[in-house]
Each structure stands twice: as C-alpha cells, then as structure tokens.
C-alpha cells in the first residue's frame, strides 16, 4: 500500500517559489491500478516522483508498505527503490547498450552475477514479447518496443510497485493500447501495484480502477473510476470528463428557465429503450441533447448524456424522477460550479 500523507513540495527558483504539490493525501491499495490525471503543470510528475523520492517532499510523509520513504538513509533508499520501479514517457533506455543489457542493468546494480542476470533478462524480454530483439540496440526499435524493453527492465528486480510516468504519451493510439494491455496483464499476473500518471483520459478509463484528479498541485477528487467519471464533482474533474466544452460555459449559454440534467447509463442494458422519446410522450417533458458520449470504463460501456430541459423546478424534478426509475440509469441535475 502506498500512502501519501499531507505531501507538499515547493520548488525554489530564481523567480520565487513554486508550490508544485499542496497538501496531497492519497492511498493506493495493494494490487490496484491507480490513475493520477491532470492537466500539464498540475504536478503529476512531481507527485509520482515523491513516491520513490526522486523528489523529496518539502513536508509530509510517503509510506510504501509501512516504510516512511522520507526517513530512509541514502543506501536504504536505493535498496527500497528496487521495489518501486518506474517507466517513463521517453523510455529512457541506455542508447549504447543492447536490449538484453538494458534489462540486465537493474540486476547488475543490485549485484547479481552476469550469467544469472542475462538468463533473467531473457525471461523478461520473453514476457514483453521481445525475446528476438535481445541483441538489438534501442535506436533500432520502435517507440512501443522501446517501452516494452523499459517495462521488462522495470520488472527485473521484482518490484511491488510500478510507477508509470506518462508512459504512453509518446505513443500512437494502437501502441498505447497494446502497452496498456501489457501493464494490465502484469498487474493481473504478478499482482504489482501500478500507479499511472497521465493527461490522457482514455488511459485512465481503459485500465485504472481508481483515479485521483490533480488540479494545480491539489487533489480535486478521488474515487473509483466509474464513480468519478459518471459523476464528477469537482471543477477539474468536470473539465476532464467534458473535454469537449467548458461546462461553465454551457451554463452561461443556457436560456432562462433551462436546466441541465446529466444522465449516465450502463450502455449494455439501457440502450434498448428510446428513453428521451418515452419521457416526452409519457410526461410531456421535452429535452434537448446538449452533449452525449459513450465510454468504456473498466470493461463496461457507459453512456453519458447532458440534457437541457426547459421548465420550472417541478418539471426538472419530474424528469429526474422519471429517468432514475429506469434500471441502470442515473440522473442528476448539474448545477453551475460555485467556487
């Protein structure tokens, strides 16, 4: 289990102080795939680096399996880091070493004999599907292949935690998908806790169980992915879930007496009924669709629709009541965010 407890990080630069992390507290359960999402500059990369103490928190503590990372001596910290390995956006392979040697690298650091290290590295390259590239150099590989080698390297010391820092941001969608599949496999097979930093909504949606939304150095919202995505509370979460438009902008454009209702439904079961048409016929409530999307979250299809309803309080309540009575559908009014 990873526990970040009131972690703050302030950088002192030439032009004053920058608060990269402001009182961040998070708990990542063992074996979870936990996503941390935020816009660029939200402090994601700093946050993930506090876990293995590449960034030392200005205050607060970082507990990994009960060990306070901030209290370790340099030598203890180096040993502990073998349990918390990391993959990067730019893969960071050693360009002058071939794939096998790259995977051997952490084993050599740990003092393993060269022959044993090579045998182990070959097994790992097989796991990531690149056994035939053992003697190739990174420059000869595609981005996706390089990231696979980096994953094999990260797994070499049999870590308990895998930190992924924008690991798919430099890859095309197809490759991203296959790398995420690999990470999911590793999580399932080896039970490694995975902490994923990304700015890509789709990454969190496709493999994370829990998510924390980071906004300007603070945690805006945490929870299960399906919960947070179907029902975003914070402003930061909303702007991520509605990337197409600023929700507050929508409110400014609403006509008088128009209200917004957000309907979320389990796509696999609720899509057989023409819901909005029925509502119009049965209740006489007319709704216009302002925004709609389908997403796959944790293997399930979710649809979300933003409806504009013209009418008074009672009409809105009636509509919500009507919609929520349907199975696998939830509806709630979306109100302008009060800051």
């Amino acid at each position, binding site marked *: 289990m990873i526990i970040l407890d009131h972690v703050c990080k302030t950088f002192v630069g030439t032009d004053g102080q920058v608060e990269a992390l402001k009182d961040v507290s998070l708990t990542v359960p063992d074996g979870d795939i936990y996503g941390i999402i935020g816009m660029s500059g939200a402090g994601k990369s700093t946050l993930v680096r506090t876990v*293995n103490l*590449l960034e030392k928190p200005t205050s607060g503590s970082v507990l990994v399996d009960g060990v306070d990372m901030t209290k370790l001596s340099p*030598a203890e*910290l*180096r*040993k*502990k*880091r*073998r349990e918390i*390995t*990391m993959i*990067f956006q*730019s893969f*960071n392979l*050693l*360009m*002058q*070493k*071939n794939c096998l040697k790259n995977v051997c*690298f*952490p084993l*050599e*650091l*740990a003092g393993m004999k060269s022959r044993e290290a090579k045998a182990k590295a070959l097994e790992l390259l097989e796991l990531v599907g690149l056994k035939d590239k053992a003697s190739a*150099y*990174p*420059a*000869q590989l595609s981005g996706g292949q390089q990231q696979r080698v980096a994953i094999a*390297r990260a797994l070499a*010391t049999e870590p308990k935690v895998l*930190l992924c820092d924008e690991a798919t941001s430099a890859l095309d969608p197809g490759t991203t998908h296959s790398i995420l599949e690999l990470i999911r496999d590793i999580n399932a097979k080896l039970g490694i806790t995975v902490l994923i930093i990304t700015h890509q909504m789709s990454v969190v949606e496709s493999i994370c169980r829990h998510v924390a939304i980071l906004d300007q150095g603070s945690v805006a919202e945490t929870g299960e992915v399906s919960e947070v995505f179907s029902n975003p509370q914070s402003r930061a979460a909303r702007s991520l879930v509605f990337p197409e438009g600023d929700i507050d902008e929508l409110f400014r454009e609403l006509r008088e007496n128009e209200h917004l209702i957000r309907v979320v439904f389990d796509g696999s079961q609720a899509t057989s009924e023409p819901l909005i048409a029925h509502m119009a016929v049965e209740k006489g409530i007319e709704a216009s669709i302002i925004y709609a999307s389908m997403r796959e979250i944790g293997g399930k299809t979710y649809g979300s629709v933003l409806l504009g309803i013209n009418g008074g309080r009672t009409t809105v309540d009636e509509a919500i009541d009507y919609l929520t009575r349907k199975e696998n559908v939830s509806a709630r009014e979306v109100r302008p965010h009060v800051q």
Partner: protein
Amino acid sequence: MFNELFSSEAWAEALPVIRGQFLLATWETLYVTVLSTFFAILIGLPLGIVLVAGDEKGIRPLPKWIIKTLNVIINILRSVPFLILMILVFPLTRVIVGTTVGTAATIVPLVIAAFPFIARLAETSLREVNPNSIEMAQSLGASPMQIIRKVMLPESVPLLISNATTAITTILGYTAMSGIIGGGGLGKIAINYGYYRYRYVIMFAAVILLVVLVQIFQSVGNKLAAASDKRLRS
C-alpha cells in the same frame, strides 16, 4: 624559403638527415604524444567527472568551494602559454624525471598543459548525457558511483573518443614546440636542422610529416567514435 624546395642541392643536403633522423624523430613524437595523452587523460578524465558529478545539480554535489577551486586551477593552467609553462615546471620535471632536457622530460610539461584541457573536454562530453537516463538509473537504485561507471561513461563513449582525438592532435602540436627545450621528435628536427640552419627542405618535410600524423589520428578517431556509437545503427 620556398624556392629551396626546387633546388636539387638543398635536397641533396636534406636527404641524409631525412633518411637518418626522421624515423627516430617520428617515433619520439609518437611516443611522447601517446604517453602524454595517456597521463593527461588519467588526470583530466576523473577531474571532468568530479566537475560534472560534483556540480550543484550533479548526482553527488560537492561543496561549492571545491568545484570553484578546481575551475580556477584549470582556467589558470589553460591560459599560460605552453612555452612559458614548460619553463615554469622545470623544478617539477627535475623531481619526476631527474632532468629537464630530453624527450622524456617533455612529457611532464605536456601532461600539465594538457590535463586541464582534457578535463574540460571530458566535462562537456559528460554533460551531454541525457539527464533522463541518469534519473532512470536513480529510480532503479543506482549509487552515484554506479551512475558514473554504468551510465555517464558508457553513454558518452562516442563523444569521449572524438574529444580524445581532439586532445591527441593538440598534444601532437605541443610536442613540436617542446623541441625548443631539448625535447626530441619532429619538432626538434624542424627547428634545429631546418629553421636554425636555414635548411628549409628539412623543416617542411618535418612539418608535412606532422600534418600526416594529425590526419591519421583524426581519421582513426572519427572512425572509432562512429563505430562505437550504437545510436547510429538503425
């Protein structure tokens, strides 16, 4: 000066010297150059590593005054003209070699002139190592020493080789100057037989030989650097 090159008398005069002395002189130049470069790297490379690793933002920051002192020493040694430096280090040369004249004696001032230059070259080479690679190594629990040995040095090998080539050709140029204080080699021939005795054919021959040596060092160095760079194998 140049018309002598077309006079058969001048050639007749020069040929015995070229035949009799050039082989030994070339050998002396080569061994002084290679030995001086070797010792200069022995001192300069670790110094370059210290400058990079011990930097404020390096992997093993050292107290600022140490880095500042090293920088000042390097800058001073690099700004003293080689001819003056040779004379200044006479006492040290006498302690180490036992004499201040002769071929072996020139190695001491050559090393002292070259190691600060090599330290700077090593410093710039090592600073080129991708900081992400260093961060990666740290994330895997590498100690500062391991980062130096297993990341910084191996990753900068191609650049280190091409900078070592620059160094060895520069040192070759210095060896020619050491002829003035009694060092052997092609420089001595060019000055003593050629310049002082107005036998310009000998002087030019020696210079041409030096140029050829520099060319050889440079092209071998370039080839080695390219061959060692695994980034180019795509």
